[in-house]
């Protein structure tokens, strides 16, 4: 018998042996016999080294297939065993559940509640909106035109059309809201002046997730629409709220920014906790870190909802609340906020 025939026979033998073991042995015995330290596969693997190219490939393929199947079986068996253990485990009916320590709010919720108390006292109402938003409310109503570079600032998640048979176009698909500013469109389309609302919620951006960037995070948004108000009132309100949040000695700075839905637009910065505004390696030398954005609502946005921008002014202010909550709680990485790990969260 030639070498090729011998190898072919060996391959047939493996298959037959495996099939017969599969039908006769229970899973754990099968795994132990074939995958164990002195298992069948190991002995065949040893022989594999001396084989010529084509046969080696074929036998290797067969061994790999069996190995994969057995590994799956091993996983299933382990899970089944675990399941059975959980099902039949004796339970302690007498456990008194005592010695309870109080639980805690999540740092983001605690921050939102804190901020809500401030604004409720100032006469602002809390509003909420859906996280699955129309493109109109999220972009177009807010003066963020399609194909404007501003849309790059907020890379978007698109929700697959609910009714695919309708053949909806991509442009009409809903999105996961990229900012809580989307609530502005909802409020402006229904409310009458004076409008004084705040909104807290989750927002979504198509970001590559790492320790400090998340595809889902939280924002806070304020909208105040009325007569005879302007940037000086907005600056005053922001300063008061930030001093309430961060303490009376906090240094606050405003810098010009660009947001399509506000003009003039400003960035809100607070002094670095370490160097207090002087500049250090922690804050990249700037001395300040940006905590939010604000501005006077763009006249195009007001006009879209039939407000006369000559008479009526809108003021808007937003904060990235996840980042601030993490900073306040001393959590170094944004990701730790959303891991549900009590070792982190119980500390605060």
């Amino acid at each position, binding site marked *: 018998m030639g070498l090729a025939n011998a190898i072919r026979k060996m391959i047939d033998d493996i298959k037959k042996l495996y099939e017969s073991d599969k039908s006769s042995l229970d899973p754990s015995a099968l795994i132990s016999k074939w995958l164990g330290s002195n298992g069948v596969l190991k002995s065949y693997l040893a022989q594999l080294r001396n084989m010529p190219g084509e046969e080696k490939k074929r036998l290797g393929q067969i061994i790999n297939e069996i190995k994969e199947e057995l590994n799956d079986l091993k996983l299933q068996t382990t*899970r*089944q065993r*675990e399941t059975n253990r*959980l099902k039949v*485990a*004796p*339970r*302690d*009916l*007498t*456990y*008194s*559940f005592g*010695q309870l*320590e*109080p*639980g805690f*709010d999540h740092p983001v*919720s605690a921050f939102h509640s804190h901020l*809500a108390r401030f*604004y*409720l006292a*100032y*006469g602002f109402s809390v509003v*909420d909106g859906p*996280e*699955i938003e129309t493109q109109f409310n999220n972009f177009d109503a807010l003066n963020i035109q399609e*194909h*404007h570079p*501003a849309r*790059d600032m907020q890379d*978007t*998640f*698109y*929700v697959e059309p609910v009714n695919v048979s309708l053949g909806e176009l991509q442009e009409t698909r809903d999105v996961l809201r990229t900012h809580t500013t989307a609530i502005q469109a909802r409020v402006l389309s229904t409310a009458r002046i004076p409008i004084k609302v*705040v909104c807290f919620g989750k927002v*979504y951006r*198509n970001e590559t997730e790492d320790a400090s960037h998340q*595809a*889902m995070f939280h924002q806070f948004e304020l909208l105040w629409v009325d007569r005879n108000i*302007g*940037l*000086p*009132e907005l600056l005053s309100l922001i*300063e008061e709220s930030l001093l309430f949040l961060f303490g009376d000695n906090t240094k606050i700075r405003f*810098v010009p*920014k660009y947001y399509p839905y506000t003009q*003039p637009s400003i960035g809100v910065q607070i002094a670095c906790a370490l160097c207090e505004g002087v500049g250090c390696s922690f804050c*990249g030398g*700037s001395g300040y870190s*940006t905590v939010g954005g604000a501005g006077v609502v763009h*006249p*195009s946005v007001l006009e879209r909802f039939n407000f006369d921008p000559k008479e009526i*002014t809108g003021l808007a202010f937003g904060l990235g609340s996840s980042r601030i909550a993490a900073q306040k709680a001393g959590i170094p990485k944004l990701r730790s906020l*959303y*891991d*549900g790990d009590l*070792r982190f*969260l*119980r500390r605060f």
Partner: protein
Amino acid sequence: MDLINSVIKQFIKVTDFKALRPTLDVLGLEVKDYVENLIPPGPCHGSSGLSVDNREEVFVIETLANRGDHLSQFNVALELATKLGLDIKDPYIYEEEIPADETLVSSLSPNTLVLGIWEIETEPFSERDLKLPSLHRLNQDTHPLVLLANYVMKELGQPMHCYSARRVQPPFGAIELSNISFTALDGSTYSVNIPSIFITDSTPTSGCSRPVALAGIIGSDDSKVEIGDFHIFLESACFHPISIRRTRNSLGINSDASYYFERGVDWAIQETAVRRFLGILQTSGIRFKVKRGFKLSQNLRRQTLTLSKRDLLKQLGDLGTNPKVFDTLRKLGFDVDYDKFNETGETEVRCPSRLWFVVERPEDVIQEVMRFVDVNTIKRRPVAFKMQQGTAPAVWQTAESCRAYLNAVGFTEIITRSFFSPRDYELLKRLGFDVTDIIHVRNSCERQYAYLKSNNVLHITNAICHNLNHFIECPRVYEVTRTYSKHSGERELLSGGFSFPYVELASVRNQAGLNLDFLVNTVSGIFKWLDLHDVDLKNFTDSFFEFGSTVRINGSTVARYGVVRAEIVAELDGKRPVAYFEVYLDELSKFIDQQNKSKVDNVPKLAHSDYPPSYRDLTVELFKIVDLAAIFADLKQKNEFIADIKVIDRYVPQLSQKGSQTEDPKTYPGLCRLTIRFWFQSHERSLSNEEIDSIFDKIVTNLRAQLG
């Protein structure tokens, strides 16, 4: 954008480049980084002439999405000069008359604002002969003429493109084409399916003009300049940003040129940029011949707006009407008349061409003024409110109340992601759940990203298992979150769960009894806390739960709870059974009395001490049925230092023979032996052993009297 010291100092006198940082911040040019010594010493620097050495200072600046003008070093220098009151020096340009050649440019498409073609023939030279102030971020492997064009783009903000005169045939035109295939100079072939602007030449081809560049984005492979080409056509043009972006997006190409055009390039700078190009050739001693062909759109004119005193006062206070503001505007290239403004309360403002994509309304001019007066100096107007408390939606208030209650009974809030991971999705499919209801999410590149969670069972169970695996003894968590499904849309719910340790007890009959009483207590506690007493329970079992119950008020399901099925816990690597509950906040809010719904401030605070606890164990033998819970409560009430009482072991001899037990786990039937652990703790100090022993003795005496 990189702001380069050696380039900037051609235009303004800067003694300490690093000291510019605060001014850049105030102007909204946020500095992300400052770097020195970027360019390593190399052969190209020694002979490149002017001021290039191996020391370079660079600010890495984050420019704003609409500010194409800030991509020009000269424009930033102009703003710095205006802000700091410095003189600005224009870049050296070639000033000789350039002969016009009308045959170089043929047509303009609607979205092309300017198309200029310069035919330039130079003597051969290398990049070493060019006297450039900086080579920072310039690709020195390219043709020296392309290198020079790239330098001018960074200096003045005008992208330019070189075509080899050997390979193209004037006249050139800008035409909108679609549904054609285009091979770009990066070697890739693109199918352009949407109407896009192409630069075409007159090389005879079948049927139509030959595209030699995808306008404002990338040139074609068959028109590119190669080594040895010193006879070129230089394109300096301006295209509408939206048109460029639409094409670039549809093809997924990124280029330096498109980055500039998308943000708006000055429509009046094309000739200046070419003259700067020629100026550098001239200073470098390179001889050349040049001809010019130029066409611009009929509609180009500087934007004129009306700026009113009322608007300036409203947004900027007194600062806005200061005459210095008008000087600043003039320095920046705006045409304004302060005297007219002062007399009539408004004036017309003609805006510089470089801001055509930025300034469209009077508010945009106010933004420019605000940048230069420094927003921090605007005088604040105190916010005058009628102090009237705002309102919050019922769901929000209900959530706040529940949150306060759950914290008090030992639950910690977590926030999990809104997505099912692919692993979760596969698990649901494998377990036979209906996944057709799950909403899929794609990213902007049309790639499947994730699935929105349609329930929170997996997330809560996962969090509990994760914490158990990290040695948290009794994880108790909850979350106020939303679920998303095709049929129900978004739903606001409060969900939570826990897992407690169990001990090996040979004689326990009711295997499902685990934690159920705590689960029931927790859920019923929420309803009691919210003053909702009239609730119905209905048992159920489904693919997620065993021993499940739904809670109903007036026929509406407001909550449900149960023990998570062992299969799911095992799949999530859990080692202990998990109890889960969820409360539908939107439904529940309908039944809550408006007066009572916010109890946040009155929640009973759970005693928590910073001082260490101690314990004593006591084994007792019971000869009669007793209500242990009542006895324990009585003991706790009598002594403030008893923090907790826990049964840690139980022995029931011949329990099965008696057959008379009750299902109530709080009442112990018949003869049995219990080991009870008493925890002692003070809120003010550490208790001494003597104190604890004394209390413990009293407890023993008390129990002996009660139990006999």
